[in-house]
Every structure is written in structure tokens, then in C-alpha cells.
């Protein structure tokens, strides 16, 4: 009847249920619920934009909106990663007690974060429509950007959560990494303001194109560098692949370490 094998469909059903659990648990007993997902990036936007204008008068056209679009994406990535890395350890009671595909634990965190991103981006697009700033040519890039973002987040979440079971240092490493990663990702600035000499570092960052694609919604001044897209895509796939392999390998012995 269904195209999927029963194993795959069971995996997806379990993933959905775990995601629902994650979302449910997050907003239990909060009055504003999902609104918090919008308030935080808006606050960040106000602060960063306020501070930045001391240095440069109008750093980029529509700088506030530019910031907001980038912050929505970055917040998805950073909050997902910082939660995912210790997810297996936090769910030790589940891991030690039942036999199920452990992948659903980090994946449910990525998925619930993605649902947030989609919802908040929907609100953002409404805002752009209202302001008449929505660029129409964004769709193909943003789809591609989403895929790269998803591959990177999923791969990294699987990789770090599995390694963190054995080496608890990994969670500290990820926190430090995210701190640095924020500054080598064009969130508060644009890639063309980076000196030619060091731009290679940005090209090694799989999130560079992702950010550009999301920012292109408001300001279609980007001309996309094809090499960047290919490089970022390849890197994202590599991260995804190694995440899957390492998780598969390590998940057999989770029980011994928890």
C-alpha cells in the first residue's frame, strides 16, 4: 500500500512523535509560547544594529531586515547544535531502556528547530510583503540553501551527539566552535566586505551560501558564486555522510558509556 518499507515508516512516525514531544515540552507552561522564537532574534537585531551603526552609518541597504533574516537562520543552527550535542546523554534513560533507532533523538531536535525556523520565516516574509521588499527571484537559491543547511545541521548533530557520549568534551568544543562560527558567517556583515586574501576561510564555511540565500530575499544584490555553492554543497554532504557513519558505528555501544 505504502511506498515506504514498514521500517522506514516506523522510523518517520517515531521521529514525528519525538519532535512533537520536543515542541510540546518546550512551550509547556509558557504564556507566549512560539512568540519567544521571534522575540529573541528581534532583540538581537535591535542590539546589533544599534551598536553597528556607531561604526558604519548604513552598513548595508535595509540593514535591520538583512540582520533579521540572517539571525533567524543562525539562531536555528546554533540552538539546534547546542541542544543536539548533549541530546543522547540527556536522554540516557531512554537510550538505556529501549531498543529503537537512536538517530531520532538528535534528529527530532533538528526537526523541531526547523519547524520553528519555517514558522518564524513565514512571519518574516509577511513583513517583507507588507513593506514591499520581497524579492521574487529568491526561490531556487533558498531551496538549495535550505538543503545545505539541513544537511549540515543534521550531519553535525549526529556526529557531535554520538561523540559526546564517549568524550564529554565535545559539548564544550561545540559551544566554543559556535562562538567562532558566528563571526566567520556573514550574519552581521556581507561577504563582499571580507578582504580577498582571507575569503577562502569563508568559502570553507558551509553556511556562507545558506546565509546568502536567505538574505537574498530582501536584497537581490547578491550575485551567487557558483564555486561557492558547489564547495558548500560538497562540504555539507561530507558532514552529513560522516555524521551518519559515526553515529551508526557509535550507537551500538551507547549503553556501555551512559
Amino acid at each position: 500500500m505504502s511506498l515506504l518499507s514498514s521500517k522506514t515508516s516506523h522510523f518517520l512516525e517515531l521521529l514525528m512523535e519525538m519532535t512533537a514531544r520536543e515542541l510540546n515540552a518546550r512551550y509547556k507552561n509558557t504564556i507566549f509560547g512560539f512568540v519567544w522564537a521571534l522575540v529573541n532574534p528581534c532583540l538581537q537585531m535591535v542590539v546589533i544594529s544599534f551598536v553597528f551603526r556607531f561604526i558604519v552609518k548604513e552598513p548595508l541597504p535595509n540593514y535591520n531586515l538583512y540582520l533579521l533574516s540572517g539571525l533567524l537562520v543562525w539562531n536555528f543552527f546554533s540552538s539546534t547544535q547546542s541542544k543536539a550535542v548533549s541530546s543522547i546523554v540527556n536522554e540516557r534513560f531512554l537510550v538505556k531502556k529501549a531498543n529503537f533507532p537512536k538517530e531520532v533523538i538528535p534528529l527530532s531536535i533538528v526537526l523541531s528547530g526547523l519547524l520553528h525556523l519555517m514558522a518564524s520565516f513565514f512571519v518574516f516574509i509577511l513583513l517583507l510583503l507588507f513593506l514591499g521588499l520581497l524579492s521574487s527571484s529568491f526561490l531556487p537559491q533558498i531551496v538549495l540553501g535550505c538543503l545545505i543547511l539541513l544537511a549540515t545541521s543534521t550531519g553535525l548533530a549526529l556526529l557531535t551527539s554520538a561523540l559526546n557520549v564517549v568524550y564529554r568534551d565535545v559539548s564544550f568544543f561545540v559551544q566554543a566552535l559556535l562562538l567562532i562560527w558566528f563571526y566567520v558567517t556573514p550574519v552581521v556583515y556581507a561577504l563582499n566586505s571580507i578582504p580577498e586574501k582571507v575569503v577562502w576561510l569563508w568559502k570553507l564555511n558551509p553556511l556562507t551560501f545558506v546565509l546568502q540565500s536567505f538574505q537574498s530575499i530582501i536584497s537581490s544584490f547578491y550575485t551567487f558564486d557558483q564555486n561557492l555553492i558547489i564547495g558548500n554543497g560538497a562540504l555539507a554532504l561530507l558532514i552529513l555522510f560522516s555524521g551518519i557513519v559515526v553515529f551508526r558505528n557509535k550507537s551500538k555501544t551507547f549503553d556501555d558509556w551512559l
Partner: protein
Amino acid sequence: MTGYKTQNNMKIDFDPPSSVTLSKVCKKYYLHHAKPTLVENILHQKNEGFWALRDITMAIKKGDKVGIVGPNGSGKTTLLKIIAGISSPTSGSIKTRGRLVSLIDVGAGFHPDLTGVKNIFLNGLLIGMDRKEITRKLKKIVAFSGVGEFIDLPLFTYSEGMKLRLGMAIAIHADPDVLVLDEGFGVGDQKFKEKIKRVYQELFKGKTVIVVSHDMYTIIDYCDKVFVMDKGRILYQGSVKSAIKKYKGNYNSSVKWYINQKRQNS
């Protein structure tokens, strides 16, 4: 030709397919004196370890009711975890046939903020049922657990007993081919215990059950075959009576009486 056929049929009758097979299973745990860190691990690779299981070979046939007994630290729970697929052996192989549900923990994945119904779905999916199946059995599960109107309330409002009953109800309705029970599954009050015993006798007639327990009465109630373990090895396997004798040295008059009672009842 016909003769062969009868012989084959006979063979199938007397020799049901094995449902859990372990061959030369060993499990080594590494000892870590503190939480392992990356640097420590690279600097000095301490490979201190101990063997929790050594060379376990066993074949459990479909329909067998197997008990595993042994002193603390003899490897019972490790063995159970390996059978349940939660842990994997260091060497050797294990094969299980059909759906296996383990009650090493009743109510794995229960979330205090979710309602009873949502927790049934979550736990049910975790132990291997799919959504359709859970939806179909939802009413039965709720009725069996006896939590009544609480089913629509979040789980933190439940008493411990109610949570355990709900967990048991889900596991029983998962309709497993192999059921793995850890000690302490006899939860709930006397009434609920009787209910589980009754259901056990009805539903699990042809199914494989593996039980770990210290309680000889539980072993007598649930098993027809017992493995005695010590220091990671199987010391003895045989009937309930002979195994208890072996394990306890001798059995006291009340255990003797209990075994006789059971024999008379069946």
C-alpha cells in the same frame, strides 16, 4: 515419500524454530576511573576491563518460558540487554526472530508534561508498534491500565503505580513474539498482579518469554526452564525445580509447596 513427510512434520512439531539464539557471546566492559576525556584517552590508553559475559551459547525455542537466575553481578541484566538489542556483544553473535519487546524499563520515554494518550503513542512507537496499531489498540490499553479519566491528563498527575500500570498495559498489547522481563515487573497492587498473571497465561501461550528475577516465586510462576548464571557464565540449565535446587542449594518447604501447587493447577 509420505513417510518422509510425516517425519518432517513430526520434526517441526517437536522442534519448534528457535526464537533467540546466542552463540559464543562475550561482553567486555571497560572501566573508567573518572569520566573519560579526549585528552586522557589519547595520552594513556587504559584498557582495563572486565568480562561481564563469557562465551554464552544458548538457544531459546519459540514458546519457551525461560528464567535467568544468579547472584548480583553475574551478568543477568547484561545478557538481557544484549538479547533486547539495547547493548551489543563484544564478540559472538545473536539472532532474534519476530518482534521483541523488553520490559527492562516499563514506560520508556514517558514524558511528564504529555497526556496519557500521547505517552501511549510515544512509548508504543519506541517499543516498536506503528501508529495504526496503537490507534486500534488504544481503548484496550486504557481499559487494561485502569487509569480511567486520568488518561487525558498530563503524566505528572499520575501516581507511580498508575504510570507503571500504563507502561505494562502498552507492553502487553504490543503483542510481542518475544517478551523480555527484568526483575521488578510485577508492579501494581495484588489485583493488577493477578490480572497480569491471567493475561500472561492467556496471551503468551505460544510466545517466547525470558525473565530475570531473584524471586523464586516469580520464576515458578512464569517459567518452565531456568538458566543459572554466575560470573558471566551459564552454570546450569534445566527444569525449574532442578535449577532452583542447584541455585539455592536446596529449596525450603514453601517453595516446594508452591511448585506443587502450580503443578496441580495446570
